[in-house]
């Protein structure tokens, strides 16, 4: 009476053996792939250690610090006007926007308000740096996915925006133009008309991108439903800017924050996208460039006359207190928590930069994706290394 048992046992063993054979045949070897520190997708020097199982990512660990410059420590030994020189270099593609929240925080502590003309010009330059920054992203997104042409268009048209910023501030990348209580200088002659022409070029650049890239089948295949970030995950990781709006969260500090800039007096729209994938992040940024063009045009029409500098003491001592001001920068929310002890220098400055939070989701979002998608996700998250490492 042992036969059925034996038969069953043999069948079991055969099953085991065949399973094992299948396992052997499909076994994939673990591999560690090092992306960066020098890689076009890293906007600086970010290194990502990716562990692979076949083509699939098991875990991804970003390694930062290649560009850490210790700005939080250095701000403690710089006077308030000197700090803007440092923080210009955090997000080097949209430098002017870095200065604004810090200056606003210092102004709040000193209870100074910039004159209306200064606020309007500030907002114009703020949005121009957004255009200069995001235009490069639009071109760069294409080049990450193998389309070389868009990036040349982006560099070509960004130069016109940089020229306008340079005409006002004297610096293409590091304007250092914002002052506590206003601006260093007024607009040069003829700037308003020239800027109108430049905005026309940027609008046609956006149309070009839409024709060249957005509808492209390869681009869609590489970005649609790739790297989906649900809204609750994005919020818990502190994503901001277009990254969180592409996940359907209707939240923009330019509309909802209400500090110091004149966005509330302009007519514009916050764009969101429900999908949360790489394509959504690209698409939201494209719309935001168009909105920014519209905003600058309205500002050019509406700049009030008057002084560009409030009355401030020559030696700037900021009264003791704490203030936190955040604005919607090109890369996302940027904020400065300034602790003052009534001295010439800040006691402590916590720099809350957008890319640091935006990249902290990378280990989560890269888990389980295929290797080529790593690049498209990194490109669509859009970070600047100076903004991560500070």
């Amino acid at each position, binding site marked *: 009476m042992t036969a059925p048992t034996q038969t069953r046992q043999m069948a079991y063993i055969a099953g085991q053996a065949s399973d094992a054979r299948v396992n052997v045949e499909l076994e994939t070897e673990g591999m560690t792939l090092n992306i960066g520190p020098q890689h076009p997708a890293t906007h600086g020097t970010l290194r990502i250690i990716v562990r692979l199982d076949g083509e699939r990512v098991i875990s991804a660990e970003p390694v*930062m*610090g290649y560009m*850490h410059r*210790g700005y*939080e*420590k*250095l701000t*403690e*030994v*710089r*006077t308030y*006007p*000197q700090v803007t020189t440092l923080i210009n270099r955090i997000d080097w593609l949209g430098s002017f926007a870095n200065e604004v929240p810090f200056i606003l925080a210092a102004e*709040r502590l000193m209870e100074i308000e910039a004159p209306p003309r200064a606020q309007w010009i500030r907002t114009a330059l703020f949005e121009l740096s957004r255009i200069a920054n995001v235009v490069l992203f639009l071109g760069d997104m294409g080049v990450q996915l193998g389309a070389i042409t868009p990036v040349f268009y982006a560099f070509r048209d960004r130069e016109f925006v940089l020229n306008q910023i340079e005409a006002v501030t004297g610096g293409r990348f590091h304007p250092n133009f914002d002052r506590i209580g206003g601006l260093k200088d007024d607009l040069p002659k003829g700037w308003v008309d020239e800027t109108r022409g430049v905005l026309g070029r940027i609008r046609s650049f956006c149309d070009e991108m839409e024709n060249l890239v957005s509808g492209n089948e390869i681009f869609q295949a590489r970005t649609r439903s790739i790297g989906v970030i649900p809204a*609750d*995950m994005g*919020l*818990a*990781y*502190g994503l901001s800017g277009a990254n*969180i709006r592409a996940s359907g*969260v209707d*939240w923009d500090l330019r509309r*909802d*924050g209400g500090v110091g800039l004149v966005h509330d007096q302009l007519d514009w729209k916050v764009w969101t996208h429900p999908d949360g994938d790489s394509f959504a992040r690209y698409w939201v940024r494209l719309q935001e460039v168009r909105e920014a063009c519209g905003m600058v045009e309205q500002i050019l029409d509406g700049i009030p006359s008057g002084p560009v500098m409030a*009355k*401030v*003491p*020559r*030696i*700037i*001592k900021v*009264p*003791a*207190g*704490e*203030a*936190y001001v*955040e604005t919607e920068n090109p890369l996302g*929310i940027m*904020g400065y*928590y300034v*602790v003052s*002890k*009534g*001295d*010439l*220098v800040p*006691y*402590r400055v*916590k720099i*809350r930069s957008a890319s*640091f*939070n935006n990249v*902290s*989701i990378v280990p*989560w979002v890269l888990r389980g994706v295929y290797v080529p998608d790593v690049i498209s996700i990194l490109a669509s998250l859009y970070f600047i290394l100076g903004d991560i*490492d500070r």
Partner: protein
Amino acid sequence: MASLADALGDALVSSEVQPGVDVWVRVDAGAWVETAQTLQGQCGMAYFNFLSAIDWQPSPFGRDMDAVIDREDDGEPAAPADLEWGITGGEQRFQLLARVHDPVGHLGVHVKCDLEGDPPEADTWTVVYPGADWHEREAWEMFGINFRGHPNLAHLYLPSEFEGHPLRKDYPLLARRVKPWPGIVDVELMPGQDDAEDGEDGDDS
């Protein structure tokens, strides 16, 4: 603010509201994680903004952090200054500082917490806000704050063999030790200039 105070209950130590500007609360160290859970669950603060720390012990090297030899009074190092805290006060040298935000109601809250011990210790927020992971690693390497229960408390920016905690106030700025910084001169008045010409709102604070 009243609902916030109700939700936090006994954990709330002190709070400050600047109407239309900002809200600060200081909570008990033991209730650090419960505070995060309450804020996320009951108050709609789904958005994790940042987490950092403040060292309230002023630097023994003085404001400019120049080498002692370059200062005029290169005598005894000054006695440790008394601790002065900012908004919502404090009791300990190290304070955690975090901010969470309600993206629907557009309200943000700064949460502070005094830390005891050497090294100072706190519970990790990563169980509530996964985004706190890197921020706690940064606070750990920059301030030496130990986060209990953190999954991977490794160096973030600095090389793994680095010693010391650079953002502590008693950590010297080594570049200034080597060469005093000339830039500090820029804020002194030029000869012949008079601060009084800036008018009645001149600097006397």
